[in-house]
């Protein structure tokens, strides 16, 4: 594969998509893909991966940004004018046409000679391993066969890029594994650029040259499967790709990180005193006797997973998941060892909520409808009110608050959640939840569409509607520079 050459086939520059109902599906998406690459968009449902694919295909137009194909802007081109073909999630084969007519659909539109069409359809059927299926009706085919016909229908047109929208989602596990390998082989044989969309991390890791991890319309990380797995950039990626333990911690010294009450040695050089998230894969933790262990704990659950046991250990307030081939009894006191190369340190993100808000005519913050008591004279240096109640600066001139923005900073741990809407000052839905050893880190999307990070030791569910209780005195205000 020609991964190294700088032969960009498609570039997405600053792509954003906001739907008519105001939902922002994709924002600031930047990506370039090289000829012949197998790229996978990976993320949970609703992360914008399919929308991005649909924009490349031309079914959706980006609200902002450019899509360049071989350097030419195709953002506004209708799908039928793009040299790109799609394999749809539910195949979308034409039920009124037979297998041959389905595959020949695109070729007939191009008005190719009959012999040429016959030859190419035959070849496409050979590639998907369904020779002699020409005359069959679509309804008589199994899911896997329909899938192959859908692929044949797309590749027969020899597109520059093949888009695959969760093509294996409707197949059973065994069939899915087989098709994964076949698709990978097909990609190598055809040399076409594949853009693949899936929410299945294993599928992405198995097949791709490059993975784009997405969440809430934004790219979280781009990298090879190895990079994504071994060096996740943030807690979301670590949590989404494979099993992992994420612990909140701090750098105590050079190459020393403290979490779970122990100073571990690590390989990531992060400045001392920085708040971090440490990711430890379950297979990188070694169970030993309490005396030999770096940290001690008690086994609270053991689940047999075929190749290994998944053992959950509680150590202090932290829950730690370990994979081991040796069985351990529930209740056993154990020690745990984590080698330096098993610890991946990430800069803790979103540790402080920063909400930018404007100031209204009454010198109140627009955030929360002026419910916050923000004393602007303390936020703006040297400011005060004159007799008429106008805000003035140190020279006595009026301050134009239209141009000023106040940043409201709230620490996640200063917020608590309640299910009684009356108790809090703001309500929202939980849209993300990551377990960080001794507490859960939530993202709550408020009714005003602001995302707020909340740390809470209690478990809430995704999509729960909660009310946020924020201590007034813990809120910090500053002027945006």
């Amino acid at each position: 594969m020609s991964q190294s050459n700088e032969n960009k086939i498609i570039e997405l520059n600053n792509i954003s998509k906001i739907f008519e109902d105001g939902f922002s599906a994709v924002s600031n998406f930047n990506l370039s893909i090289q000829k012949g690459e197998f790229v996978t968009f990976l993320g949970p449902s609703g992360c914008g991966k399919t929308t991005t694919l649909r924009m490349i295909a031309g079914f959706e137009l980006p609200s902002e940004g450019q899509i360049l194909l071989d350097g030419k802007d195709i953002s506004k081109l209708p799908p039928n004018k793009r040299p790109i073909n799609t394999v749809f999630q539910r195949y979308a084969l034409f039920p009124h046409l037979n297998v041959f007519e389905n595959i020949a659909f695109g070729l007939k539109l191009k008005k190719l000679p009959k012999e040429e069409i016959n030859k190419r359809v035959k070849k496409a059927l050979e590639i998907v391993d369904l020779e002699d299926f020409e005359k069959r009706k679509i309804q008589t085919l199994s899911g896997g066969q329909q899938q192959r016909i859908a692929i044949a229908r797309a590749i027969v047109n020899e597109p520059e890029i093949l888009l695959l929208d969760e093509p294996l989602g409707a197949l059973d596990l065994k069939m899915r594994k087989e098709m994964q390998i076949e698709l990978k082989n097909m990609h190598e044989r055809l040399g076409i650029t594949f853009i693949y969309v899936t929410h299945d991390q294993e599928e992405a890791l198995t097949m791709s040259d490059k993975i784009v991890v997405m969440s809430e319309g934004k790219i979280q990380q781009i990298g090879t499967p190895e990079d994504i797995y071994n060096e996740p950039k943030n807690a979301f990626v670590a949590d989404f790709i494979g099993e992992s333990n994420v612990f909140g911690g701090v750098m105590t010294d050079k190459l020393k990180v403290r979490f779970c009450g122990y100073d571990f040695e690590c390989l990531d050089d992060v400045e001392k005193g920085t708040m971090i998230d440490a990711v430890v894969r379950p297979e990188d933790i070694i169970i030993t006797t309490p005396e030999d262990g770096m940290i001690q704990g008690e086994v609270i659950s053991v689940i047999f997973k075929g190749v290994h046991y998944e053992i959950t250990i509680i150590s202090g307030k932290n829950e730690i998941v370990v994979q081991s081939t040796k069985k351990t009894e529930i209740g056993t006191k154990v020690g745990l060892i984590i080698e330096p190369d098993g610890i991946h340190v990430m800069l803790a993100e979103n540790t402080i909520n920063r909400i930018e808000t404007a100031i209204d005519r009454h010198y109140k913050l627009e955030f929360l409808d002026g419910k916050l008591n923000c004393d602007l004279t303390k936020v703006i240096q040297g400011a005060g009110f004159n007799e008429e109640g106008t805000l003035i600066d140190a020279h006595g001139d009026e301050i134009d608050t239209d141009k000023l923005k106040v940043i409201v900073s709230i620490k996640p741990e200063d917020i608590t959640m309640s299910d009684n809407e009356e108790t809090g000052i703001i309500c929202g839905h939980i849209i993300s939840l990551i377990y960080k050893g001794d507490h859960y880190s939530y993202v709550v999307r408020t009714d005003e569409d602001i995302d707020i990070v909340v740390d809470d030791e209690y478990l809430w569910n995704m999509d729960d509607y909660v009310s946020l209780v924020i201590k007034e005195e813990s809120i910090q205000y500053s002027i945006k520079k």
Partner: protein
Amino acid sequence: MKKLRLNRKHLCIPYSVFLLCFVVAPLLVIIFYAFTNGEGKFSIDNLVGFFTSPNTIGTLFYSLCIAIVTTIVCLLIAYPIAYILARSKIKYKSTVVLIFVIPMWINFTLRITALKEILTIIEGNLAFHPFLNTIIGMTYDFLPFMILPMYTTLLKLDNSLLEAASDLGASPVKTFIKVSLPLSLPGIISGIVMVFLPSMTNYVVLDMLYNSTYIMGSLIGSYFSAYDWHNGSMIALILLIIILVFTLFTNKYEEDDHTGRGGVKI
């Protein structure tokens, strides 16, 4: 003695009795009258008479002509409406569909009388345009029967199929011709069946529009009101056969459509 036990087979007895009394027996009566003369003897005079009289043959062709034109006009009006209603993203879709269906719920006599008044205002004397008025009346009466089945089929048309066509290089026009149209064929055929057959016989519309035009229905009506059961039955039988042939013909296109032609729902 054998105990009388009721099993599932016996459940079809009431239906069979109904079928016998109200379908088979009347049909036999029609056949009997069609092939007998005034003295109650077997005769094919009625059959020969139908095909030799320029009057009746003329009426048959005129009826066919009216039915074909009515069907085409209905089709041309109904398809775009059904397509727009089914494919557009308008909010109160079912309400709009309801507006097209509501006339069906209003008394037939009232509807046609209203139409008559309107046409009289426009045309002055209804007798000047008998053919045009017939078509207008029939179209007005049968349009909902054309819209509904087409709307139902188009509603089920999977959007990803249209996207797939466009993805494979089809322009919007080509997508319509190669995908939307063939896939809505079952609905179109259902609509045609529901409009074509009644418009050959529904002479009440014509009567109410003070129309002198004669169609098959009017012919049967006039024979029956003159107590000529024999000729009336023969024409009814001939119509039945025409309808039978027509239905067999359209059935061929419907084999893939699982909704059947009763698939009329809002």
